Each structure stands twice: as structure tokens, then as C-alpha cells.
């Protein structure tokens, strides 16, 4: 219990904004996981590519910010994985990742 109480009172704990901001960002991960079940035609290439760059930058930000924010780091590492996977699904559906050129579908 002592470590839990220490977490509650920590500078990145649930009484601080350093906690709830990252919690909000987990919404992107959940949304990405839900969208993995949908057909790839529904994936937005723009948004997914932006998310991949965004989460890569914020992983670095979470590491360098004071105090170091491991929750934010974990959130963006997860989002990076989910969004890269979605990007690959989108790319495959667009025909970018296939060998045969005539299979490329136009958006």
C-alpha cells in the first residue's frame, strides 16, 4: 500500500495534470485498436501518417520533459505500434505494398 500511496502523491500522479493529459491520449490507442477491426478502406492515410510522426516525437518529449513521464511514453509507444500497423493496412489496401502494379486501387 505504501508504494500505491507514493504513486498517488507523486509529481506525475493522479492529482496532477501530468497524469490526466496522458490518460486522454490513450484514447488514440483505444480508437486505433477498435479501428483495426474495420475494413482498411475506412482508414485515413493523412491522419494515420500524422499520428505516426506525432507519437514518435512525443515519445522523445515524454522522456526529456521534467519530470520524466513514463505514462506518456508508454501511451505514445503503444500508439506508434497501433498507428504503424494501421498505416501498413492502409498502404496494402492502396496497393503500395504489393508486387503487382495493376492491383493498385485508386483512392
Amino acid at each position, binding site marked *: 500500500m505504501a508504494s500505491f500511496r507514493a504513486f498517488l502523491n507523486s509529481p506525475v500522479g493522479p492529482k496532477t*495534470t501530468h497524469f490526466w493529459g496522458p490518460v486522454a491520449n490513450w484514447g488514440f490507442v483505444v480508437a486505433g485498436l477498435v479501428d483495426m477491426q474495420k475494413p482498411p478502406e*475506412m482508414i485515413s492515410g493523412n491522419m494515420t501518417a500524422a499520428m505516426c510522426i506525432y507519437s514518435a516525437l512525443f515519445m522523445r518529449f515524454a522522456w526529456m520533459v521534467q519530470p520524466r513521464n513514463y505514462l506518456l511514453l508508454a501511451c505514445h509507444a503503444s500508439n506508434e505500434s497501433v498507428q504503424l500497423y494501421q498505416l501498413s493496412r492502409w498502404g496494402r489496401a492502396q496497393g503500395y505494398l504489393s508486387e503487382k502494379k495493376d492491383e493498385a486501387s485508386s483512392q
Partner: protein
Amino acid sequence: MSASKLQALWNHPAGPKTIHFWAPTFKWGISIANIADFSKPPEKLSYPQQIAVTATGIIWSRYSTVITPKNWNLFSVNVAMAGTGLYQLGRKIRHDYLSDAEPAVAKE
């Protein structure tokens, strides 16, 4: 603008040599991507993703005004995110519930 002022900005602890500048700056990419998607048909928009964009935008807008120091760049980018997310949600809800078109979830 004098050279030393530019130098001061360049060397600022949250300046363009640091992640504290580029991460919030790049966050604009999400809103720009969403604006590019304004022209997408509403059937192709994702409720979970737009809700995540809107909710993140609203929560971070609030929190960027209570951190020290207040970060207006972070505030403005999150206000924009909430705005584009709300607009996209409005488009999709209007299409699914307020028009005669069939709400299409699967591919056509």
C-alpha cells in the same frame, strides 16, 4: 529584430533545438490531416478516432493553461484539434442520423 533576440529564441530551453518545441509544433499535423479529411465522405470517418481527437483536444486545452509556464502553443494546437474533431463528428452524425442516407459502416 536584433541578432541577439533571435539568438535568445534559438537557444531557449524550449526552443527549436529541443523536443519541447517540435513535439507541440508537430501536433498541428493532426489538425491539418483532419482538415484535409473534411472532404472525405462521412461514411469513411471513424467515430472512435474523432472522439479521441476531440476529447484529447479539450482536456489538453484545459491543462495547457494550468501547467507552469502556460504554454499557448500547446493551448492553441489543442483548441484546433478539438475544433476539427467536433466538426468531423458533426458531419458524421448529421450523415448517419439526420439525413435519409443509410449509415454505411462496412465498405460499399
